[in-house]
């Protein structure tokens, strides 16, 4: 396990933010090196410096095999043997899966023209190693978040680099894909490839990592072989304070009053018999937290998109016992539904706007009884949420593009919670959120439920679903496969229902 | 010979401006009197190529006669020759393409009209002082001929200094801005030539404002074309004279001559000069177009 890359005294300052402060990191070949830290600790920033996307402040050094080097850009980094899966997906949506994987290194025929056949064939091979059932000629725009994430992984692996950086690769994946990924990582390690692995799922660190480096507020706290750390040590080093029990004791607040009643919900498309999601019936009670579980692509998101008016559907939706017509998200919102979408970049945030503007977009009326927006009230409320959710930002005027992934996710949650809808749908709500904040989000959901809100939680993180839900609905191939009361739900029974 | 009602005559102006609307009136009336079919095809811009396309379309349609006011003489030469060769009678009016082999040209000489304009100005300002030209589209051939005529006339008056020539894209709003800037940049300006249709109205409007009102007595203005606003400018004393060509006459003569050529009654054609009238306060009510 030879030392390949070293970072020494690396710092990075953004206007108003010191993201990294003299960080050291050593990456060895044939080793899985986990990087842990709270949201905004500087993990992604460090990786972007390693791949030439950012330039570090003067004073820091990067050495490859002992030689100092200046990494110019992503292409240069790749030439040096470093490839990365970014935390935020970066796919060209109008190109196909194969074209994305082979972008900028397309196989050519002797004539100089593209060798599409070969490209598709090789892409299919890469996809097969990840057990992905996606045609290489599918436009990426048609894939779900999880599928796109897998394509990113496939692409990074296919570069045959010496080091592969994975920035929260499993955030959008369900257990099944995560397991496949772990297998791949082991295989890569065996081939002598070094992996830098960033995740907020601590179990994964213990499952796969050989070594862990912990960042806090932009500084290295420690770097240890995995054998020397326990979960408690790790968490303490990350957050520097006592954490309440991760999954607090569950209290059920569900009443018998039906809040949302869905009957025969079916995707409306020209060829109805081919509709992927069909005949969904379920009820949500006031004060209930209803979990939705399923494998990637099972159709959970599509169900919620129909309820929220993003997709045309047939069937009936009743709220508070009255049937409602929902054609547009604004209709759903008017009927008291809120939706924390899984794709924060594409659907959740206006990246160019600041924290305050994104926060208030769902409930601007609250600050503008007439035409004008009361900026003081808006800022004050936003500050409250920034504080209570621990959103790390220099001010409410910071543009959200400049925030770390986890902090962006918290804003998406905040903007809906602040509206206090009757029904809150959260799709992968803790995607990219650190362990401390995750507990806070769970506590928040419980609190909202106790106040009488009905909450639907979609999560691919099975322990999370089990921890927060009063009831769990399992979706398989676009239908409800089974519904579990909390008492009957266990990892095994649910997995069984999702896969069998 | 064909029946009159089967004969199709097409007339192509340069572009949609009042002058050609008068031509249309003259030509349409003549066509009605003569009982022939009549088509008025207005190009959407002043580029030579646009007229070439229209000529091609008309050849495809096999019309019998075409009268055209040419935007750019050279570019239509080949296509007019082709039309003539395929048996279509072609003549030019208002603006000529001498080498195109067209049967005849009906109109005025823009150069001569410009010269008349220059002479009139020289007389009005007693042969000395600063003058400026306000034109329309910078590339327009007829306007350039008028400007050349003016310069030729002014060459005889060493004390007259042409201080500026400004384009306006034939846009009234731009013309007004340009006029204002001219008056400010050249406080001693004695005369303005409005060689395109916006020249007269724009200067009249500027001189009617409080700010430039005092210049009404010191600045002499000559313009082209009898737009209502230009005529009004003469009435109100802002404009000293308008060069008026005879568009209605041109339209009428074009149709008449084409018909005669089609019917074979006119075998040799000679150019027709329709002349220019200088319209001023004295003859404002009694000139023919």
């Amino acid at each position: 396990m030879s030392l390949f890359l070293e970072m020494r005294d690396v710092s990075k300052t953004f206007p108003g933010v010191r993201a990294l402060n003299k960080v050291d990191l050593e990456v060895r070949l044939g080793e899985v090196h986990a990087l842990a830290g709270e949201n905004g600790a500087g993990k992604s920033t460090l990786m972007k410096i390693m791949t030439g996307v950012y330039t570090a402040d003067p004073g820091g050094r990067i050495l490859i095999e002992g030689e100092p080097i200046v990494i110019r850009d992503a292409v240069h980094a790749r030439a040096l043997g470093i490839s990365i899966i970014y935390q935020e997906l970066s796919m060209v949506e109008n190109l196909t899966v194969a074209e994305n994987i082979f972008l900028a290194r397309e196989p050519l025929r002797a004539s100089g023209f593209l060798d599409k056949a070969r490209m598709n064939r090789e892409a299919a091979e890469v996809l097969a190693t990840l057990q992905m059932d996606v045609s290489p000629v599918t436009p990426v725009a048609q894939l779900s978040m999880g599928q796109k994430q897998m394509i990113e992984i496939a692409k990074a692996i296919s570069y045959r680099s010496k080091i592969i950086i994975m920035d929260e690769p499993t955030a959008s994946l369900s257990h099944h894909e995560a397991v496949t990924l772990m297998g791949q990582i082991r295989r890569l390690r065996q081939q002598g490839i070094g992996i830098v692995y960033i995740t907020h799922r601590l179990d994964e660190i213990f499952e796969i990592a050989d070594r862990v480096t912990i960042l806090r507020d932009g500084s290295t706290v420690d770097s240890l072989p995995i054998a020397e750390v326990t979960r408690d040590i790790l968490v303490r080093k990350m957050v520097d304070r006592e954490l309440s029990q991760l999954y607090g004791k569950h209290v059920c607040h569900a009443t018998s009053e039906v809040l949302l009643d869905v009957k025969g919900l079916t995707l409306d498309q020209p060829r109805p018999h081919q509709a992927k999601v069909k005949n969904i019936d379920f009820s949500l009670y006031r004060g209930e937290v209803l979990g939705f579980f399923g494998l990637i692509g099972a159709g959970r998101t599509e169900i919620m998109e129909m309820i929220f008016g993003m997709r045309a559907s047939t069937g009936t939706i009743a709220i508070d016992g009255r049937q409602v017509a929902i054609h547009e998200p604004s209709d759903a919102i008017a009927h008291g539904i809120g939706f924390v979408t899984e794709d924060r970049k594409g659907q959740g945030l206006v990246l160019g706007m600041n924290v305050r503007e994104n926060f208030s977009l769902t409930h601007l009326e609250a600050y503008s009884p007439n035409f004008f927006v009361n900026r003081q009230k808006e800022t004050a409320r936003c500050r409250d949420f920034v504080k209570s959710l621990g959103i790390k930002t220099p001010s409410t005027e910071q543009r959200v593009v400049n925030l770390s992934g986890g902090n962006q996710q918290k804003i998406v949650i905040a903007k809906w919670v602040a509206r206090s809808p009757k029904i809150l749908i959260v799709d992968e709500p803790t995607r990219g959120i650190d362990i401390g904040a995750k507990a806070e989000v769970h506590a928040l959901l419980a609190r909202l439920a106790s106040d009488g809100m009905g909450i639907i939680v979609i999560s691919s993180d099975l322990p999370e679903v089990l921890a927060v839900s009063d009831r769990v609905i399992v979706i398989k191939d676009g239908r409800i496969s089974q519904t579990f009361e909390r008492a009957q739900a266990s990892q095994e029974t649910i997995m069984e229902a999702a896969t069998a | 010979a064909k029946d009159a009602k089967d004969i199709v005559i097409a007339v192509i102006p340069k572009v949609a401006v009042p002058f050609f609307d008068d031509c249309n009136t003259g030509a349409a009336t003549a066509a009605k009197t003569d009982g022939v079919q009549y088509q008025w095809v207005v190009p959407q811009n002043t580029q030579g190529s646009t007229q070439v396309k229209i000529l091609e379309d008309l050849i495809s349609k096999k019309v019998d006669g075409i009268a055209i006011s040419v935007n750019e003489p050279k570019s239509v030469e080949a296509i007019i020759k082709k039309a003539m060769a395929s048996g279509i009678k072609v003549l030019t009016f208002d603006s000529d393409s001498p080498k195109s082999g067209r049967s005849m040209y009906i109109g005025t000489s823009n150069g001569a009209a410009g010269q008349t304009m220059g002479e009139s100005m020289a007389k009005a300002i007693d042969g000395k002082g600063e003058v400026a030209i306000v034109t329309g589209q910078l590339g327009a051939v007829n306007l350039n001929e008028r400007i050349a005529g003016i310069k030729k006339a002014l060459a005889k008056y060493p004390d007259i200094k042409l201080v500026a020539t400004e384009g306006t894209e034939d846009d009234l709003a731009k013309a007004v801005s340009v006029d204002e800037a001219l008056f400010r940049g050249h406080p001693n300006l004695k005369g303005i030539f409005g060689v395109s249709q916006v020249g007269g109205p724009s200067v009249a409007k500027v001189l009617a404002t409080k700010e430039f009102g005092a210049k009404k007595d010191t600045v002499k203005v000559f313009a082209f074309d009898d737009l209502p606003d230009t005529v009004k400018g003469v009435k109100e004393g802002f404009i000293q004279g308008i060069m008026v060509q005879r568009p209605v006459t041109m339209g009428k003569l074009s149709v008449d001559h084409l018909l005669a050529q089609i019917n074979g009654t006119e075998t040799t054609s000679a150019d027709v000069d329709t002349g220019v009238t200088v319209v001023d306060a004295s003859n404002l009510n009694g000139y023919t177009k």
Partner: protein
Amino acid sequence: MIVRDSPATAVLRPRHTAVGGRVSALLQVRELNVLTALLVVVALISFSTPYFLTTDNLMGVFRSFSLIAIMSIGMVMVIITGGIDLSVGSVMGLSSLVTALGFQSGLPTAVCILGGLATGLLFGLFNGVLITVIRLPPFIATLGSLSIGRGLMYIITHGVPLTPDTPDVFAEIGQGYVGLVPVPVVIMLAMTIVFSVVMRKTRFGRHVYATGGNEMAARLSGVKTGRVKLLVYMLSGLIAGLAGIVSFSRYLSAEPASGFGAELDVIAAAAIGGASLAGGVGSVEGAIIGAALAGIIANGVVLMNINTYAQQAITGAVILIAVSLDVWRSRSKGA
């Protein structure tokens, strides 16, 4: 290495950093830079000709670019939503024609004005419906309206300007003064203030920015993005209609060619003032400054007696230089 104006870029480099001082509190860095470019141009022209910095000339210049500036207010809102309105010039011309037709048929002044405004609003509505209901791309929808509007003008006028008699009070709109300031300039300033406040301080303004910044995210947050877009096109049409009335009142002649090609000037004003055609970015003040820059250069080249044939090339070059400086400054600051 880094691209302008793509949201992804912004991840790498913030473009609007705060700068001290009062003015900057009001204007973003981007506008400040164009303003600097404008002041440099003004200084250069003033040095080369004594006629420039006179109240009369300045007021004249302001009045000259006021029509473009007024229309650029509607345009910048459209552009911020990520759209474009190519029909403004055409709508301005048609509105001035409709007003003139009103006077020609002897209708009362108020009715004629309403007619002009209604024309603008109708075209805006037409654009908006094509874009939000039929879902045509804005470029094609408004290009269609441009052709239809201009075609209607030719059909109505046959190329002959309409110059009906009008009451003196009507002429005040385009030709009158409030103190030393021409009425069109007053209208421009009033509109600037009103729409600047609308864009900065109201819910509607926020929704316009959100729609252009990320339409999907805005819609999922409950913003009726279709309605927002419909509204900005209607506003743009209405404002172009207003410009048409001011134009007719100023020249008392409805020209068939009036407003021809103005769309490019209007879009350029917004773009020079910092609006990004990708949407989400831009400001009303910026657009006005952009219109002023172009207008002042046009005045300067005539005052400085630059050869008329060279004027267009010089105008183009000066604008390129001005905006390049602006881009260069905000880059070196933001980096």
